[in-house]
């Protein structure tokens, strides 16, 4: 068995799969990370990813270019993010329940729209997805699609933005002590809302990757809990982009491993056991990191200006 594992891990095809599996997780985790650094828990990610997957795919199905599809998905994600932002930031409603509402709403809205726009299809129609970047010539990356490259580039970019720009400092400050930010002339409500919208756009792109790159059609249940896994990964990453990348890759590695093991070790264990592993692993990640969580201090505390 361990020989099997070593064989699998040593091969390039394994790491190709890892990068592919990790891409939506990277986008999604960075999106949640951004929202949480500003102090807002965004549990709408699952629904936003579904909406992103659907809108991106549908745009391409209607003739848009692939990158336009990605753009549409980002905008759709941002729109749902705006809904969540309005509910949680100026109105100060429960971030948990609002997020769940957005997830339920997004998921059901996407299903409804699909049925309205494509009333008589039985098998999901396909589109031409992103092609691998064979022109790059770099062994591992040339098998990946452009969105993966974007995800990898986004990690250092976001880290720089958070840590070295005034906007990033504002985001971090409103997540730690909004009163302090306010006292220094920062509009806390605006910063939080913009950040949630931006993070949600990333989540939309995560969904688009599924329909425009990993697969080529939209299925119900295609997101399948990836959004929740991203939420767990953010805790595991201690809210830092670099660690988020590491976490996503680690998780993707386990996922790819269980896929290969399923195929190679025959019918020893029911396939459901293998499918359970990603979720179980996420719970484990949460438990391991919860004890040492250095979370943004104003996370989940609504900010009410001028309230006695």
């Amino acid at each position, binding site marked *: 068995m361990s020989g099997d594992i070593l064989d699998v891990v040593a091969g390039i095809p394994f790491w190709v799969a890892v990068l592919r599996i990790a891409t939506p997780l990277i986008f999604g985790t960075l999106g949640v990370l951004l929202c949480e650094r500003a102090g807002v828990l965004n*549990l709408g990610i699952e629904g936003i990813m579904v909406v992103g997957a659907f809108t991106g795919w549908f745009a391409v199905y209607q003739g848009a270019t692939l990158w336009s599809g990605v753009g549409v998905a980002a905008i759709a994600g941002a729109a749902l993010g705006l*809904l969540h932002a309005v*509910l949680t930031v*100026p*109105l*100060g*409603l*429960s971030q*948990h*329940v*609002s997020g*769940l*509402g*957005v997830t*339920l*709403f997004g*998921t*059901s*809205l996407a*299903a*409804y729209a699909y*049925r*309205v726009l494509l*009333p008589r299809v039985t098998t999901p129609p396909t589109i031409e997805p992103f092609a691998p970047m064979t022109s790059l010539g770099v062994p591992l990356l040339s098998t990946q699609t452009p969105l993966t490259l974007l995800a990898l580039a986004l990690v250092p970019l976001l880290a720089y933005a958070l840590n070295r720009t005034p906007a990033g400092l504002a985001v971090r400050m409103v997540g730690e002590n909004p009163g302090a930010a306010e006292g220094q002339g920062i509009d806390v409500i605006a910063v939080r809302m913009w950040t949630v919208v931006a993070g949600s756009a990333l989540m939309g792109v995560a969904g688009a990757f599924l329909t425009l790159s990993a697969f080529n059609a939209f299925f119900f249940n295609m997101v*399948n*809990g990836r959004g*929740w*896994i991203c*939420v*767990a990964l953010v805790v595991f990453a201690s809210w830092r982009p670099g660690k988020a990348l590491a976490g996503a890759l680690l998780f993707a590695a386990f996922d790819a491993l269980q896929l290969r093991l399923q195929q190679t070790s025959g019918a020893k264990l*029911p396939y*459901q*056991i293998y*499918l*359970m592993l990603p*979720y*179980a692993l*996420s*719970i484990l990640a*949460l*438990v391991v990191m*919860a*004890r040492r*969580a250095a979370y943004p201090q104003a996370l989940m505390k609504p900010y*009410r*200006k*001028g*309230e006695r």
Partner: protein
Amino acid sequence: MRLEARAEVSRTLQVAAPFAAIAVTLVVCSLLVAWSGAPVGGAYRLLLEGAAGSTFAISETLTRATPLIITGLAVTVAFRAKLYNIGAEGQLYAGALAAVGVANAGLSLPTAVVFPLVVAAAMAAGALLLIGPALLKTRFHVDEVVTTLLLNFIALLFVSMMLDGPMKDPMAMGWPQSVAIPEELELGKLAERSRVHSGLLIALALAVVVWIVDRFTAFGFEMRAVGANARAAAFAGLPVQAVVLKTALLSGALAGLAGAIEVMGRAGYVTLDMSPGYGYSGIVIAMLAQLNPLGVVAAAIFVAGILVGADSMSRAIAVPTYIADVIVAASLIAMLVASMLARYRIRFK
């Protein structure tokens, strides 16, 4: 723009809130109906007829409402103590599976003994599924929302595994469904030619019981106190961790019971699609009822009506059934806003 707390929260506003939320939701969703090309007025009329327009319609609504009342109660109990149980879906399936398992375990005992055993097994299964996340919350401060959510997926995969293997119905010709509940354990029908079963009476009774516990018992007091302010409750000497865990047991047990009652009353056997999101709808119901156990009954009937009505409507005109899920989700969001408006005034300055 800022929020100003109202000096006095009037009862009327609080009672009106869910109705206002539903009204706004229906208006907003009428846009979606219009988008599908169907006439809005006609569509909503068909929805209403499908939900309550005939005895059959009402019976269908009540049948659907039965598990929703119980999951709504499960979520209400948990949310009261600020335990966010999003895992009611998985707990429901676990309860259903346990019920079928124990019922077919070949126990040669009289029905009067097996019946309560089956029910107890279902409740235990649901409770067990929630106790893990609850312990993680009290001991390690792990947010229970994500853990209960992830467990839903694990629970469903487990059920799938059981249905493919040990609990498969050999006579179902390859279709993944479980062995059926023996007939003597089935819940009796309340009315001829309808699917309404005595599970409804159990659900209603449970609503009353939960209400009594919440309002009149010391445990209910403790649950509310811990949910309102855990630190102050601890200072006063209330056993906060124990209360949270007991609440988890109760909530999980109720969700498991919902599964058992579905199996024993409506479905007859466990399938992977026996619950179209009853666990998640339970959350909407709990919020619409403003965490009041008696209000849960009304809210559950409302949600059931929407689901049944949309089914019937979609057969008549070309509005996809998913409109029901959209309406339910939108009413959750609308209810959040409405209950906030009942307690705060918005000032634009």
